[in-house]
């Protein structure tokens, strides 16, 4: 939760703790470190508008491409980049055409990470061994292509692999590539090893059926951007085809990291042309670093003023609400950090709105409590009643908000409007936690406080307490803690 660079957000004079937190490696008896055993903090991912990121200028590499509609290719490439970057839908990248190039700005990652994500074309090919009429396979020996029987092929890497082709329904011979995939996902086999499952569309299934039927007993290899996909031991991943396969298949024996990256790339699709990185640089916040900092300070001031107002107006419950809100804000920010949600201005707007709704839930409860106290209920009864009465409005308004979020998210996803999508996701997280906070956190705090006798003094709860029938009578010294209703 604690910011990595606190001087941006907090008064400068105090030496706030900084950095990435403590790293406590869990050490085995033999001294080796166990992975994942650290308490290192991750940094909050802030969007381009708030923090900046990396800017890459990409140029299409047209050397191996004949006639191609460059405009269309670049449009398609920017869609794919968007999909690769926005894994969870809210990375909030920015892509624009710059002449015949693409300029991409990515938040919160280094130039190397950016290269890994968008530097690859991601063309998946299915390849088979090149064979002659007698079924001998082609290998490269001393730079020469010669044919040997399949049984004497010792290293798959030596063989010549050609793209597996088949005939489409309308009679064309085409290579089978990743463009026919409709779905790719990861699962695990019995041993818990990652298995990449893929499914073809109708056309792809038709092609795959012919190819797998033809290759029974022979290996089928997967190539990504002309490089074979390798298993965990660095061996080429080329399983022997056992039977004719239709629409779906699997790739096994990969490391988890590799499999995850592959799924991501395949889901996003392949670039229509390879892209070269021409320029990469770090960029500052698009809203301006100075402006963002001023806004953060202003936001913090506003928070303090609101808490002060709540304490003055609602007295002790206001203070409790303040504490509950801090707990609430902490949980929400922690979720944003761990998800991870890229926090942009629209995300912060959604966060502030959800804080507002959480404040509102508290206010609703306290107003109800006040009403109950004024008609002479005891503190405990007033509190329980207050919660019960306020619940229906908290529930309905929050459910309506969640419905709105779901629809906005879906629309944003369909239309590629990432602002709308990011807003909807952050608001939904905020609202869910705010319901939890209002009901559980505030209630628990209130219960604890009510159990302290000194806190039961009426002046801490309501300004004018009227007892039944006599509005002018002096306030009782202490509210009863329970009983009478």
């Amino acid at each position, binding site marked *: 939760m604690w910011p990595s660079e606190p001087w941006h957000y907090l008064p400068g004079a105090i030496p706030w703790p900084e950095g990435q937190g403590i790293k406590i490696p869990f050490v085995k008896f033999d001294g080796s470190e166990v992975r994942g055993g650290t308490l290192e903090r991750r940094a909050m991912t802030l969007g381009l508008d708030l923090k*900046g990121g990396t*800017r890459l200028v990409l140029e299409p590499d047209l050397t191996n491409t004949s006639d191609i509609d460059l405009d269309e290719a670049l449009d398609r490439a920017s869609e794919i980049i968007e999909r690769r970057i926005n894994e969870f839908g809210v990375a909030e990248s*920015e*892509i*624009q*055409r*710059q*002449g015949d190039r693409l300029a991409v700005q990515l938040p919160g990652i280094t130039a190397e990470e950016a290269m890994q994500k968008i530097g690859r074309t991601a063309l998946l090919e299915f390849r088979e061994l090149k064979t002659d009429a007698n079924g001998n396979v082609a290998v490269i020996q001393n730079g020469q292509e010669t044919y040997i029987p399949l049984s004497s092929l010792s290293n798959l890497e030596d063989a010549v692999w050609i793209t597996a082709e088949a005939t489409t329904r309308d009679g064309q011979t085409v290579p089978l590539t990743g463009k026919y995939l409709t779905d790719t996902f990861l699962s695990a086999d019995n041993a818990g090893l990652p298995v990449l499952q893929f499914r073809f569309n109708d056309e792809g299934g038709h092609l795959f059926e012919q190819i797998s039927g033809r290759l029974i007993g022979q290996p089928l290899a997967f190539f990504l951007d002309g490089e074979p996909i390798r298993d965990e031991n660095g061996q080429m991943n080329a399983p022997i085809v056992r039977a004719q396969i239709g629409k779906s298949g699997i790739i096994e024996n990969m490391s988890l990291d590799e499999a995850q990256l592959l799924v991501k790339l395949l889901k996003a699709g392949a670039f229509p042309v390879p892209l070269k990185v021409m320029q990469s640089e*770090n*960029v*500052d*916040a*698009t*809203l*301006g670093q*100075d*402006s963002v900092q*001023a*806004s953060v*300070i*202003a*936001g913090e*001031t*506003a928070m303090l*003023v*609101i808490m002060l*107002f709540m304490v003055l*107006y609602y007295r002790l419950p206001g203070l409790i609400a303040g504490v509950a809100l801090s707990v609430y804000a902490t949980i929400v920010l922690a979720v944003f950090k761990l998800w991870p949600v890229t926090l942009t*201005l*629209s995300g912060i*707007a*959604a966060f*502030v*709105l959800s804080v*507002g*709704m959480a*404040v*509102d839930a508290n*206010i*609703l409860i306290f107003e109800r409590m006040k*009403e109950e106290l004024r008609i002479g209920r005891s503190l405990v009864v007033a509190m329980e009643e207050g919660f019960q009465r306020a619940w*229906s*409005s908290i529930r*309905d*308004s*929050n459910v*309506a*908000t969640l*419905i*709105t979020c779901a*629809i*906005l998210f879906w*629309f*944003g996803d369909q*239309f*590629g*409007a990432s*602002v*709308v999508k990011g*807003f909807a996701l952050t608001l939904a997280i905020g609202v869910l936690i705010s319901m939890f906070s209002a009901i559980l956190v505030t209630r628990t705090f209130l219960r604890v406080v009510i159990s302290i006798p000194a806190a039961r003094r009426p002046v801490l709860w309501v300004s004018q307490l009227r007892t039944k029938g006599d509005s002018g009578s002096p306030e009782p010294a202490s509210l009863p803690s329970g009983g009478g209703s």
Partner: protein
Amino acid sequence: MLDFVQKRNWYYLLSILVLLPGVISLIIPPSLKPGIEFSSGSMIEVSFQNSVKEADLRTEMSSLGHPEARVQGTGQNRFLVRTSVLEGSAEQTPEGGPQLLGEQQAITQALFNKFGPMLKDNGSLAADASGKPIAWTVQSSAVSGTVSREIGRKSALAVAAASIAILLYISWAFRSIPNPFRCGIVATIATLHDVVLVMGAYSILGKVFNMEVNTMFITGLLTVIGFSVHDTIVVLDRVRENRQRYPDLPLHECVNNSILQTLGRSINTSFTVVLSVTALLLIGGITIRPFLVVMLIGTITGTYSSIFVASQLLVTWEEGDVPRLFRRIIPKRTRAAVEEG
């Protein structure tokens, strides 16, 4: 006791009076000025030898006639400046010289005059043959928009779909009282009231102060919608509760009581929002102003509409004001005479 419901037609009149200028402004094109995110434009990169603040550069661009410019630092005193299309901006920068070709050169020259010597891409001082510093653009190019123009229409579709879903949900959630469907309808009307008001106000601001619509505006509008629905449901919830508790009370009294009972909360909630938005407007960054303006207008109208539009419409509907109004207008003379008598 205050009677809010009695004067409901005056509130409608006030709403119409406030909405009208905005609606007129929305009808007169351009209804909303699209910002540079949506359209193609120019981008130049400049690098200075002396220390230059981002804010100063932004101010300077503004005084050069480009208040829309987006200034983004890319290193030590080096900035990317994205503007609307600069007239006559050539792809190549001339090798110095006194003659200025087009707006881009004029701007670079002005920045040079203001902030001093400029650097080339490799960090060396930009100078002419005699070593005299000259204005220099590290790079310049024509760029496309970053956000599809369609986003406005698509967001509108999303909001329309969300309104229908909320209408259905409220109709279901309020099924315990008679005519729950009306609650859904009035809540939706109140929300649309706020959307139109904010858009209208922004349209006027666009015409008067050149304020442009950008993704921040869309974010602000979504926030306002969220706030408005939330606020309306809280008031309607009280109506629902009072309706169940005192089923014999006439609706206008019930609504009036509900408004009075939720007034404290409504005012406090919007007060806290207005407070924080004002704080941000006063001391926050200048670049997020469009968002804050939308929030400020939206919060106030959101609160107003839940008290003075949504629940009042419920009474209007129940008491058949609208058919009565029609009856009054159509056979005007005869009816009017009878009623006055």
